[in-house]
């Protein structure tokens, strides 16, 4: 059990790191949102699932309810994060943030 939890936690942290690196490295606002929106959602779900699984090691009703709460955080993030990404993209496009374009293209 603890091996599975460690692997999931490590994978989640890796995708968190990828998201942060992407936010730092990408050239413009829209591409940064790609990294932020996707990686953070998936990494949050992975790490929260790992913690919920670890919490279930001693199976009692109380622990089960706490694990369900943790999974409800994951479900909330799963709905909320793409919505925030969408709102930010649309706002940036309306306000007029300049997108980065590949050289040699009109």
């Amino acid at each position: 059990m603890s091996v599975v939890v460690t692997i999931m936690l490590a994978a989640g942290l890796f995708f968190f790191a990828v998201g942060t690196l992407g936010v730092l490295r990408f050239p413009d606002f829209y591409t940064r949102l790609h990294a932020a929106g996707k990686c953070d959602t998936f990494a949050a779900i992975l790490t929260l699932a790992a913690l919920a699984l670890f919490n279930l090691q001693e199976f009692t009703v109380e622990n089960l309810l706490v694990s369900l709460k943790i999974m409800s955080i994951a479900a909330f993030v799963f709905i909320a994060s793409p919505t925030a990404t969408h709102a930010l993209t649309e706002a940036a496009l309306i306000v007029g943030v300049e997108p980065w374009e590949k050289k040699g293209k009109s």
Partner: protein
Amino acid sequence: MAKVSTFLILYAFWIFLSGMFDAVHLFLGAVAALLVTFMSSTLLFNEESPALRTGAVFGMLGYLPWLFKEIVIANLQVAYIVLHPRMLDLIDPQLIRFRTRLKHPFSRATFAQSITLTPGTVSVSIRDDEFTVFALTNSAAEALPGEMEKRVAAALERE
């Protein structure tokens, strides 16, 4: 019908939030769930939402695993692009638009959220039945609307 199902869902949510099964807390939970049902019963289930149809629920259950697989692929792709030393050669950001065949507002919103979570694309806006999507690479731009729209339609728009 909508009110009863809202109340039942909220009461189940209360029980697993609370975790106390004595009479006082169960009664307070019933009062709270009734209050919320009274305040916002038209929010959870209304005419925009097909969630009351059982077919849509089972369709959603079939759709989510596929979506999760796509999310894993999307993350691996983003990881590849971010960790690539010459990242700027790989990306080619562009805006694309297409018309959708989906009719229901709820399934359109589901489709847009799925677009945001899957490889290389972020949905920008829905105007009438026209989607605007920001794609990170050329291949992601060409793949839309594609298979995902069919799957959403099969999951949620079956009559």
